[in-house]
């Protein structure tokens, strides 16, 4: 290899020095010589490193591996090679040229802090936030919860395609009267924390939900699918169970904390928000599965006290089970496996005595026509 010109920065001052570079006689090092240098420098080829990901491919910036306190173990001096033949030769013969050297002990530090970060996040997600959500859900005044619940139902209405406030609500007087009759049959004589307000939204989905503060919403699809008033009463009793244990409020509080946390940990990289959402769903599924089971038990007790047969409950879950086109794994679903729930209700119903229908046929007919 021939002697060639290059620029040299000594890492001590910002002056640029013109130097000559040549291969040493033993072919193991680069010899750097020039007027600015007291004596020629010898840079062993083994130690040479070049800067990676640079824009200008006509220059190669060389440095040396050295035990310094710098971010990477590198000598602060820089040698800039502009001779294309030398650049080509270096790239061809030095496989370790772009190697990233690490300070010793760095992996131990990474593992320590990764453990700390995971532990802190897990502690927050699974212990502190749920516990705080429980406490705060008890502290919040009922009238504020009612206001929050109304905001949630109004949002739900928009989400289901309502053009404005109240546009989806089903208001036929006879239907509403039937709904009230069903509600009072279930709750009369019980000490309730909330005034339950039941509504039906005109939407074909088979679903019902309990918003904070006693707001229960059933969708028309549920009334269409139900084969008798006892089935609707079972769903209503289940939702009342959620209302009484403040599940919706607790869940909203916990989600507010963990969603912010998950977005922060996962960052704003592409698709990060989607992964945060799935993560949040997995966590909330775990909590809501327990809450669903409790609401089921509450509903069975409520039905029993009101002399309504739990057979409707069992029939409804059997039908849901047939409807599930895609069987979601239990950990992804917020409801306990429906067949198990149906069995539980059937067992309960088999020992019930003296039951009578929750609505008479005329009331049931009116309820099914509540949206007309």
């Amino acid at each position: 290899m021939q002697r060639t010109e290059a620029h040299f920065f000594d890492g001590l001052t910002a002056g640029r020095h013109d130097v000559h570079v040549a291969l040493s006689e033993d072919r193991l090092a680069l010899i750097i010589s020039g007027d600015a240098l007291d004596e020629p420098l010898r840079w062993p080829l083994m130690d040479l490193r070049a800067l990676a990901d640079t824009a200008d491919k006509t220059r190669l910036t060389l440095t040396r591996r050295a035990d310094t306190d710098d971010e990477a173990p590198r000598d602060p001096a820089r040698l800039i090679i502009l001779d294309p033949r030398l650049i080509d030769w270096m790239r061809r013969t030095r496989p370790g040229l772009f190697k990233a050297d690490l300070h010793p002990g760095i992996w131990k530090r990474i593992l320590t802090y990764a453990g700390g970060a995971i532990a802190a996040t897990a502690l927050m997600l699974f212990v502190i936030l749920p516990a705080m959500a429980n406490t705060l859900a008890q502290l919040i005044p009922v009238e504020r919860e009612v206001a929050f619940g109304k905001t949630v139902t109004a949002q739900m209405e928009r989400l289901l395609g309502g053009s404005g406030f109240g546009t989806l609500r089903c208001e036929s007087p006879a239907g509403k009267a039937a709904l009230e009759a069903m509600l009072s049959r279930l709750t009369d004589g019980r000490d309730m924390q909330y005034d339950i307000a039941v509504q039906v939204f005109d939407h074909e989905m088979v679903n019902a939900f309990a918003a904070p503060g006693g707001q229960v919403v059933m969708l028309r699809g549920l009334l269409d699918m139900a084969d008798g008033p006892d089935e609707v009463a079972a769903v209503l009793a289940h939702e009342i169970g959620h209302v009484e244990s403040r599940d919706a409020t607790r869940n909203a509080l916990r989600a507010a904390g963990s969603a912010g946390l998950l977005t922060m940990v996962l960052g704003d990289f592409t698709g990060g928000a989607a992964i945060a959402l799935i993560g949040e769903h997995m966590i909330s599924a775990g909590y809501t599965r327990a809450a669903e089971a409790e609401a089921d038990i509450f509903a069975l007790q409520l039905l029993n006290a009101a002399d309504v047969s739990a057979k409707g409950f069992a029939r409804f879950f059997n039908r849901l089970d047939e409807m599930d086109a895609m069987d979601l794994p239990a950990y992804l679903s917020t409801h306990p496996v429906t067949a198990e729930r149906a069995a539980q209700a059937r067992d309960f119903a088999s020992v019930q005595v003296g039951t009578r229908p929750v609505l008479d046929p005329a009331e049931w007919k009116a309820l099914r026509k509540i949206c007309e």
Partner: protein
Amino acid sequence: MNSDQDIMTLRYAGEREPLLGLTFRTGLLTVVTLGIYRFWQKTRIRKYIWSSVSADGDTFEYTGTGLEKFLGFLIAIVFLAIYVGLIQMVLFFAGLNIMVDPETASPQQMIAQIVAIYITAFAVLPFVLYAIYRARRYKMARTRFRGIRFGMEKGAWGYVLRAIGYGLLTALTLGILTPLLTFKLEKYMADRSYYGTARFVQTGNWTELFPALKHVLIGIGLLVLGTLLVAAGVMSSAWFAFLGGLAVAVGSVWIVIGAIYYAVRSFAYLTDHKVLGKEIGFAAEPRTGTVIKAYVLGGLLLGLLATVAFGIVGALGAAFIPLLEGAGMVGTVVLLSLIGIGYLVALVLVQALGMVLITQPILAHYIQTIRIENGSALDRIAQRETETGIDAEGFADALDVGGAI
């Protein structure tokens, strides 16, 4: 003192294809690693951009590493996980306590509720400001020119206090004091910055930034005038209403352009009045027109290419849908995953295109208009100590402060 030969011009040599390839490849790696690679992605893009900038033939160097950024992020998470989780929930609880009934609420109650929601954002604000200063300090500490390190003193909490104080002052004066905010914060940071042993000083006066604000003020004037005309027009003539509507539309566009004008002009003024080591001066002449053109043309092209990319994914997805019928559970999951992957790839591509169509051209324009006066004095500047124990902008990464690069 400054002869003509002693003026150095900055050049930017970055090109489209290599940066597009780098951003796209590292973006895919980031998705595959569930976001962990993003620290290496940012580092590699910075290495490319820094090495594209040169003065007098010598290129800049970015020496940060992905690993130290990852470590900094982990350290920040340990602290922020606890703070952010708790504060989010407590604030949400406080928000619930002032929740109003949407059916019966008065406008005042609704406004109070909206204000309360915005106030919750202020809980993390001190940390966001802290992160801004630390991120600039980290970037300075990891930048070298001619083998000599840049650097910045500690002082993030001082920055937080000043930013909040001047920010409140600006908000209370409805934005009139924006030049004070811009100047004082930049001076705070510039005066703590070094190149080697030489210190930067921000000279000049904040009142001289007012001319830069003129187009924003004109826009606001048009907006106010237009609103008044519309109000008057409703009662008297349709002509007034039309003129007023026109003034509002023109005023809105004027404010946006005025904001870009302010950013460009204040950058030029602040650069012109920076001095390094008492003897080296700077000058910048960025042009508002060029920056706006880059935004508009780059934005249009990006929009077009994004439509094409997502269109292809959408068309392929639609072609797959008939296959869903009759496909079993496994088949459905596979097909849906393929569509999801196509969508993610398109998203990464659009981000990479944004980098080369908008970010890089604007950056290149700013850099190429900068001159260094009395550049030969640089030769006398000596090395500074390496900065250890820096958090590698972990807070900025956790709080998502800092933008594209």
